[in-house]
């Protein structure tokens, strides 16, 4: 039995912990390790059972890192201003510049810290070469990182409790006293401590909350990550008057394979075929320029586009010419020898789909096709147009994929100071810090920048751990 799991409930409740941590992903673990290294007695309350521990961190893959020269697997240099500029581009200004720059500057010292705590990086290989300068990839992905951190925490004597659902963070005035927790569905226990770190993510797996925020359409969204990020702690803190940041109605969503599981489909459900496709909705109509820009730059908008269509579903249609131009899909494409037949197999009006494709083909113009750059091969007289890679869909067999919005995370979070301290209208809470997705909305108010979620989690996790330890010292 893992260390900590063996601790009986009575001992757990009777202990006065130095630091009680809600959550068990990257940010929580960075906080736990930092506090334990400062000599604190730390308990991690992870909502998931052990095989699913680590929240969305177990689905991640890389860490975006500033560096003044070659650093570990990172080539060349990636300086603060360029990094911040990349952030501005995706957030369209929805960021707290002071916090953002602090995170960016701190990222450089995080990378060696991560390595010292068992994280292995690898040079970016296939398909991700464009990121070899800016992003350090975890060997084995996020779950390998999560495993390394749990082992580091265990070696430091941190107690980990799995299936620990935090129901309430109890405050007395501006001070945290204890958390109310149900372990494995058992009775509510009080876990008392001198400081609290809140790192239990957003609310994207609570479909009901999502539908309240976004609208009824959200019931058809797929959740790419953990089913355990239900925002219970987030809501509890908001109800107790904590300041929030981030648009409460918004989530980050991409278009994924419609056959993906409702939760936890992770990275492999992504589909990279859109730029080479004609994409139609349930009615067989096109609705957006599939070739607007290169896929890494358009990947993130398609979740929203599909979410706006009837029944929140889209269908990408390609032909034999394009099937090998993108990363393999987790499920094989639906395949047919004619567009009509493909439409029928996809549950669409085959005749209508054939007309849409025929109209598109008629609008396609001869020219040079180049799959990896903006080739300017555009349709003529078509609305909406397709402005790149507009080759006719005419070579059987034809292939189709169903697309659905896949939610990555929500933006609503707790407002924190630059020392990660949680804020209320009446001023900061004296002994409560937040880290990770739970406060990332301050910095990432819109859009997404690859590997930046892990950067925010690592930087703020370490800050939260350090501050909590300093408080109890």
């Amino acid at each position, binding site marked *: 039995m893992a260390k900590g799991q063996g601790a009986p409930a009575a001992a757990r409740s009777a202990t006065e912990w130095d630091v009680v941590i809600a959550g068990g992903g990257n940010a929580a673990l960075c906080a736990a390790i930092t506090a334990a290294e400062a000599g604190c007695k730390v308990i991690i309350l992870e909502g998931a059972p052990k095989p699913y521990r680590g929240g969305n961190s177990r689905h991640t893959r890389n860490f975006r890192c500033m560096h003044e020269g070659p650093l570990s697997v990172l080539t060349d240099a990636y300086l603060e201003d360029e990094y911040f500029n990349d952030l501005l581009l995706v957030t369209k200004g929805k960021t707290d510049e002071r916090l953002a720059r602090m995170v960016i500057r701190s990222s450089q010292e995080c990378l060696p810290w991560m390595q010292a705590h068992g994280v292995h990086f690898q040079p970016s290989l296939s398909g991700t070469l464009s990121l070899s300068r800016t992003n350090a990839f975890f060997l084995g992905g996020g779950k390998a990182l999560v495993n390394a951190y749990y082992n580091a925490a265990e070696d430091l004597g941190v107690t980990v409790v799995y299936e620990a659902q935090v129901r309430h963070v109890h405050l007395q005035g501006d001070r945290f006293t204890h958390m109310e927790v149900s372990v494995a569905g058992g009775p509510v226990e009080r876990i008392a401590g001198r400081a609290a770190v809140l790192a239990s993510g957003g609310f994207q797996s609570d479909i009901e909350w999502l539908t309240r925020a976004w609208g009824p359409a959200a019931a058809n969204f797929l959740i790419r990550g953990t089913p355990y990020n239900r925002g219970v702690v987030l809501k509890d803190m908001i109800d107790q008057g904590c300041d929030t940041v981030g648009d409460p109605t918004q989530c980050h969503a991409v278009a994924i394979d419609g056959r993906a599981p409702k939760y936890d489909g992770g990275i*492999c459900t992504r589909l990279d075929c859109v730029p080479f496709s004609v994409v139609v909705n349930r009615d067989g109509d096109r609705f957006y320029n599939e070739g607007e820009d290169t896929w890494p730059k358009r990947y993130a908008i398609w979740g929203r586009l599909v979410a706006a269509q009837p029944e929140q579903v889209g269908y990408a249609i390609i032909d034999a010419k394009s099937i090998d131009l993108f990363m393999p899909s987790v499920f094989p494409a639906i395949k047919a020898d004619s567009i009509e037949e493909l439409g029928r197999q996809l549950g669409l009006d085959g005749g209508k789909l054939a007309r849409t494709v025929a109209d598109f083909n008629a609008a396609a113009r001869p020219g040079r096709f180049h799959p990896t750059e903006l080739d300017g091969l555009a349709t003529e007289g078509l609305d909406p147009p397709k402005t790149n890679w507009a080759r006719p869909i005419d070579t059987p067999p034809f292939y189709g994929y169903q697309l659905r919005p896949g939610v990555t995370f929500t933006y609503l979070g707790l407002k924190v100071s630059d020392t990660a301290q949680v804020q209320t209208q009446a001023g900061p809470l004296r002994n409560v810090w937040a880290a990770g997705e739970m406060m990332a909305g301050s910095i990432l108010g819109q859009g997404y920048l690859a590997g930046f979620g892990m950067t925010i989690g690592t930087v703020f996790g370490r800050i939260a751990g350090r501050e909590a330890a300093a408080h109890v010292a």
Partner: protein
Amino acid sequence: MSLETPALIQEARRQLEICNACRYCEGFCAVFPAMMRNKMFADGDISHMANLCHNCRGCYYSCQYAPPHEFQLNLPAALAEVRQDSWESHVWPQGIGRLFHNHGVAIMALIVLATTALMWVALNLRPAEGDGFYAYIGHNVMVAIFAPAFLLPLLALFVGLRRYWRDTGGRRATVSDLRGAFWSVAKMRNLSGGHGEGCNFEKEDRYSNARRWAHQAVLVGFLLCFAATSVASIMHTFGMPAPYPLFSPPKLLGIPGGILLVLGTIEMARLKLKADPTLGARRVWGGEMAFVVLLGLTGATGLILYAATGTAAVAWLLPLHLGTVLTLFLLLPFSKMVHGFFRLAALIIEEQKKKFMREVVTAD
């Protein structure tokens, strides 16, 4: 092909297609770069990847889709099943392979049988004269027993390996193919975890190089013992018969070899007892363990026999040692021993495929 082959290959294919859409594990070992060369996998591709896999288990413990996730990915087990099946279905006769791979007790029984037979030889065909152990079993009798017991299994193995080579797309091996493959073996590169801290065998999600070292101890130990035997038979041919003194090539090779073999197999067995059996081919766990014991016994009885030189115990120690050696020879194609040959073949073929890919890319 066996009756189970299609189902085993199909399950590995299902898992590899999910892996190929994720690719987080690409840095662990040679399997993933091989996987990423294709979108669709022919049966031969899957056998090839299965034999490239060293069962380091890094991908399992890092997998976001491992059970209880509904994708139920357990690639080390799926590939182990295909690998095991590829040996059994390529090496003739299949029935003998199945028996000894599946049943450790069959291996143990063969040791007893071989030892008993050699005891009978020592008792009933004892030569009129001879030094050292030739006083118990004559040289000609030994050759009459061991030459066919070594060469016939070797022939079976060779035929099976040649079929495997064709099925998985092997071509004529060049010096650089061999260099790359042997370098991988020498460093046990595919048990390094890609970062050098080793694999996830006996300590779950913590890395360890214990199995890497233990394997090399066994490998080097075995090769030293084999070299000792070969040198001795050459020396015999040139009129320098056994027994040999301590400072002679057979002893200088054989003693460290025997010690490495014994220590390596003890560690291998210990690690195997700690590792999770569900991440390998479960049905052959017993056969694999018995094979480790057989290797260890071969080394141990050889060392004890040497220590007992000149005593009466040689009368039964010699048949015991020769019984283990005979069993090892006979089971060369029908035990875990085959893994070395198939894996080396896979590593050579992988060098060829990598090179072929580079040529295609360069030509593009």
